[in-house]
């Protein structure tokens, strides 16, 4: 594991407790206080204290017969969370590839998190265009179709909390006025798609549609981003049809069926 250079920022009780947890392996699945103390060169009394807290929170379980401890179910739960996150959208990759190749525009699968739009997947489809939308990157919501199209379907509270904070003006076309953005969002809700031209970088256009999950909630967006001159009115219609078709297929992967 990477060790932090700044020793002052380390909380020793937490560090030691995490080291205790990491002693447990499939080969060494039960450990007593004494063994733990020896392996980590800690006093038995402090190990005892850490272990009690870990047990109270479900990270360790005591085997009453032997008095030894094993890992608790809290860790199984957290492991499932850490894993599933990456797997959820894995099946969507081929759809993105086809879209990107057909239109020579990078296709993106985005989610909204931490008040930003997050690029979960990106397929370039052979395009060599330079974009900041690398998978794993964040971007602002107010200036991107891929962000606005998710935000539009969030609660009024969430929308308010985004629009009431200062927003960056990236180009002369960036809309930062809350009222104007509210009107845009309401339009997006009725059109069920968003398009932003030159609002983040001049010369670039993004067109995006929402993706619903098994509860029918908009959880992500599917977006094609390219040069503004690639997206005239006629082409906008074609892109939109294809995006909608593919979003429907991806929603099915997530368990959403239109009733």
């Amino acid at each position, binding site marked *: *594991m*990477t060790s*932090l250079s*700044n020793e002052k*920022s*380390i*909380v020793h*009780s*937490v*560090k030691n*407790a*995490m*080291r205790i*947890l*990491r002693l*447990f*392996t*499939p080969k060494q*699945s039960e450990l007593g206080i004494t063994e733990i103390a020896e392996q980590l060169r800690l006093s038995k009394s402090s190990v005892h*204290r*850490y272990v009690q*807290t*870990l047990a*109270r*929170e*479900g*990270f360790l*379980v005591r*085997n009453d*017969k032997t008095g030894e401890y*094993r*890992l*608790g*179910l*809290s*860790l*199984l*739960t*957290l*492991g*499932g*969370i*850490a*894993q*599933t*996150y990456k797997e*959820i959208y894995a*099946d969507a990759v081929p759809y993105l590839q086809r879209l990107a190749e057909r239109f020579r525009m990078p296709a993106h699968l985005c989610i909204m*998190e*931490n008040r930003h739009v997050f690029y979960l997947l990106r397929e370039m489809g052979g395009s060599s265009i330079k974009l900041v939308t690398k998978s*794993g990157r*964040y971007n602002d919501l107010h200036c991107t179709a891929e962000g606005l199209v998710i935000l539009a379907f969030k609660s009024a509270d969430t929308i308010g909390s985004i629009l009431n904070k200062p927003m960056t003006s990236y180009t002369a076309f960036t809309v930062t006025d809350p009222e104007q953005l509210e009107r845009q969002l309401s339009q997006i809700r009725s059109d069920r798609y968003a398009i932003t031209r030159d609002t983040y970088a001049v010369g670039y256009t993004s067109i995006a549609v929402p993706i619903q*999950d*098994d*509860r029918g909630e908009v959880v992500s967006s599917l977006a094609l981003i390219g040069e503004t001159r690639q997206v005239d009115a006629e082409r906008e219609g074609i892109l939109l049809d294809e995006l909608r078709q593919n979003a429907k297929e991806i929603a*099915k*992967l*997530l*368990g959403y*069926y239109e009733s």
Partner: protein
Amino acid sequence: MNSKMTERVVQPMTRTPNSSLTNALRILKSFSIDHPEWTLSEISEVIGVSKSTACRLVQTLESEGFMFQIEPFNTYRLGASVLALSHTVAGQFAMFKDTTSYLKQLTELTGESSHIAVLDQAEVIYIQKEDSRHRVQLRSHIGRRNPAHCTASGQAILAYMEPADIEKLYASGLASCTPRTIVSLEKLQHTLASVRQQGYSISNGEFMAHIVSVGAPIFNKRGQAFASISVAGLNKRMLPNLPRMVSCVRQTSEAITESICARSKDVDIDKLI
């Protein structure tokens, strides 16, 4: 662990010397499938500590690989240590070591996701899962806890408990998840009695609207229902095929019971959780 219990214990502990550790563990436990990422400010709000304290706790967890930061927004996810340790926990359920093939087969036969679950208090925990191509159960994952009384996997185990124990377990009432959830103890007892009689359980939208699950118990040598197997999917697909779903689930549960009982060492129900 009963969440009510931890809450009661955790609150007064915040001023004891171990409060940093308690807070760090609460940070880890704040992650969920619906909230797999947290920013520092969110963490400090949820845990109720200052941002600088949250920062030190998070950096310590990060130093041991329990969390990692996504640049550049002070946003964190669960790290590789969590994954490694969860594999160790999964390995503790040795009795389910050979059941993966049964789950695969069940999913292949039914086309739906299948799960093995055990009971902890009034919740089921999924120990194994086989995804269907539909991925309907987006929020079901290994280690996920769901209320037992509204899922087929939970009802299949509860059905073999003494009615008096059920009464104790639900002394504080039954939580409602959908309009179809059983919320009266009397009705639950009645449902569990018929589950016991027929040997399988069905939840039709009782936990999530549109989702139907079918479950059956897994027994140890002493005849205790210590786990269950279930399939879950969209009602549109499940309901027209219900008789076939039921028979597939029952056959699989019998096969797993047989293979577990064929082993020399019995499953000790009290040592499971």
